[in-house]
């Protein structure tokens, strides 16, 4: 058990959130509205686009138990990571292919993170965003170290921590991409369409919190210790299943709350979450079935009676790995929605006369919107 590992991730994400929250509030009043350089945002997007595949490959590494295919680290069989003969890599055993590939991709992510910090240093006017990119770099280095130690020590617990930290990092990249986007500033001009109370923010905070918990529970099952107790394993399974449906329910409620908010950057991903969780539940069942066969409660499924589990089957490992990858995707998307919602909330707080917001039903008040716009723009003009 390594709750410390979990705490580590929570601490990281928590700190980042605090930084974002604190600064979001001040920023909207200060009208510090220079958009981040395009480059910064693009690098963030690149990170997001690289990290998800990285999670896929990492997931495959675990599914195939290939984590130890290259027993040394940071080098690969004594070679520098980048100088390992590519032919041996591509044509060698599958284990080596994915493990070395995972390391290469990870290194590329690290390089992109470095360029992000550099470009943020020059192009990003908001200091806290620069700090955030620094945080990303620290996180990616930590993750690399975790992965390396996992190999050097051949340790399953570290593998689990590494597996839990990856998605947290992915979510953080997604959040940074949102914060550096141009739209981030456009929120200022669009306020008043919905009123974001603390209840709504809490609801939307619960989704990433729950999905991360799910992720950690899943990792406990996936990286189970050989001498773990069957009772505890069964308990984790039960919790994982119940929470999955709870999460699904929450995403539905959350979507209902903001489906008419008029802001597609909020309602669309919120709707997407319902679908993603549904897919994830199906993948979860699939993951169980390809690992342990059909459970008795699903014995009514046609064909389940004669189902044969096939160890290390390719399509099976894809099901298992996509369960892992979809989990991270749900986390990232829910963090994105939540951060945007926070943004909306803080913009309102800073600029709208609270009495006015309370009086009107913000949902359908174009007048209110206009008024907000004016009051929003005022400080900028002044």
């Amino acid at each position, binding site marked *: *058990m*390594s*709750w*410390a*590992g979990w705490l*580590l991730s929570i601490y990281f994400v928590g700190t980042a959130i605090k930084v974002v929250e604190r600064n979001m509030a001040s920023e909207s009043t200060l009208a510090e509205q220079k958009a981040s350089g395009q480059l910064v945002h693009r690098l963030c997007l690149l990170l997001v686009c690289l990290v998800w595949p990285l999670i896929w490959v990492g997931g495959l590494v675990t599914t195939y*138990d*290939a*984590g*130890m*295919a290259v*027993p040394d680290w940071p080098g690969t*069989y004594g070679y520098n990571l980048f100088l390992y003969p590519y032919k041996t890599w591509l044509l*060698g*055993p*599958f*284990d*080596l292919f994915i493990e070395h590939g995972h390391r290469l991709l990870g290194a590329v992510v690290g390089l992109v993170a470095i360029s992000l910090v550099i470009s943020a240093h020059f192009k990003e006017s908001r200091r806290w965003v620069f700090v955030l990119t620094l945080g990303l770099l620290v996180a990616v280095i930590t993750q690399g*170290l*975790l992965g390396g*130690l996992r190999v*050097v*020590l*051949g*340790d*399953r*617990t*570290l593998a689990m*921590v590494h597996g839990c930290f990856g998605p947290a990092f992915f979510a953080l990249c997604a959040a940074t991409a949102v914060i550096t986007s141009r739209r981030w500033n456009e929120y200022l001009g669009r306020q008043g369409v919905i009123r974001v109370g603390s209840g709504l923010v809490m609801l939307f905070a619960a989704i990433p919190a729950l999905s991360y918990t799910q992720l950690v529970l899943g990792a406990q099952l996936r990286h*189970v*210790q*050989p*001498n*773990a*107790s*069957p*009772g*505890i*394993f*069964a308990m984790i*399974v039960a919790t994982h299943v119940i929470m999955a449906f709870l999460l699904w329910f929450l995403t539905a409620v959350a979507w209902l709350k903001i489906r008419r908010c008029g802001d597609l950057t909020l309602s669309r991903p919120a709707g997407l979450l319902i679908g993603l969780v549904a897919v994830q539940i199906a993948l979860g069942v699939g993951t169980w079935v390809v*690992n*342990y*066969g059909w*459970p*008795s409660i699903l014995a009514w499924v046609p064909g389940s*009676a*004669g*189902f*044969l*589990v*096939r*160890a*290390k*089957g390719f399509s099976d490992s894809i099901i298992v790995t996509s369960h892992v990858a979809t989990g991270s995707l749900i986390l990232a998307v829910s963090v994105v929605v939540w951060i945007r919602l926070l943004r909306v909330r803080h913009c309102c707080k800073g600029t709208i006369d609270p009495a006015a917001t309370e009086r009107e039903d913000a949902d359908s008040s174009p007048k209110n919107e206009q008024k907000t716009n004016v009051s929003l723009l005022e400080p900028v003009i002044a």
Partner: protein
Amino acid sequence: MRIPSLIIVFCLFVGCDSRIETFEPNEVFSLALAKARSTSTDLASQDTSRVVEDLYGTPDEPRWPESPAAKKAVVDERNLFRASGPVSSEKDGTHVGLFREHCVTCHALEGSGAGPASVFQDPYPRDFRHGVFKWKSTERGKKPTHRDIRELLTKGIPGTAMPSFALLAPEDLDALVDYVVFLSTRGEVERRVTAAAIDELDYGDTAPIAELILSSQGDTEGGQVVQELVDRVHEDWAEAEQYEVAVPSFPELSGEQLVASVARGKEFFHGKVANCAGCHGPAGDGSLPTLDYDDWTKDYTTRIGLTPDDREAMKPFRKAGALRPRTIAPRTLRDGVFHGGGDSASLYRRITQGIAGTPMPAVEVVAEPNGKGLTTGQIWDLVRYVQQLSTSQ
């Protein structure tokens, strides 16, 4: 210097794997034995653990006893090395720690069948320590051959959680087969030694005299008893091949001959001798209500006078690591799924041997019809009927 300290800091902070030093003792068996003999088995089980570790080593460093009889059982020590220990792999892609990679979540480190993921499985994963196996080509009371286990690993057991490992490298399979034999042998010796300590060596609430103390060396009486048990279990494995059930050739029939044979088979199915319908139901769909348990469960329940669904009585056993007792039901023969294979040879063996460890009885093979058993021809009739049932849905 810097990297090790970094590692230590990390382990303190994050927590690393708990080390696996020894095989856990078979507490469920000690408890059952204590109950059966009305005596304390603590001392016996302590000394057994020590002796068994001397003989068979630990999960990370398995060993194979040296005695001549023990040597007969063909287990390659290099295979034991490959299958044991933590999961890792070598440069050429060969994996080591195969058992923990592929089997441990179900079968557990000791092969007790109570691995972390076992709770939701029905049937439960096999407890290898009884030395009893269901799906094999040998006589009911005998060990399976290496070939049997190997075939089982390739085919898997459809309809149960037991996977097919056909995609593994052949050497990996060989290593795993040897490791199953290792765990089973080790576990059975452990059971037998504990029992002998109580029954033959005066173990009880107090330790016996020095001469009778369990030992892995054969000089004292305690040592000799252990040696005999080791030899016996190893010999059982070594001679398994001799007890392979020969299957007479299966005459392929067609047309009217087949119809007639199936009709006769149906009569035997319902008849007094085989009386398959008595358990599998007149329609062969396993729908008759039955209440029975397999031998792995009976070992710590009915055989020592406990009722498996008596929760209070089961509590100490569950605490000691036993899974919740689960009934075993006669299978439906109509869904085309045979856990041990549906080919004629497998069915012949199933009918003539029954299924070891389960209530499924054997039908005696007789030379002439005599009302006590079935002749080979009659068994083939029954096989054809069962095969026909399985395809008729």
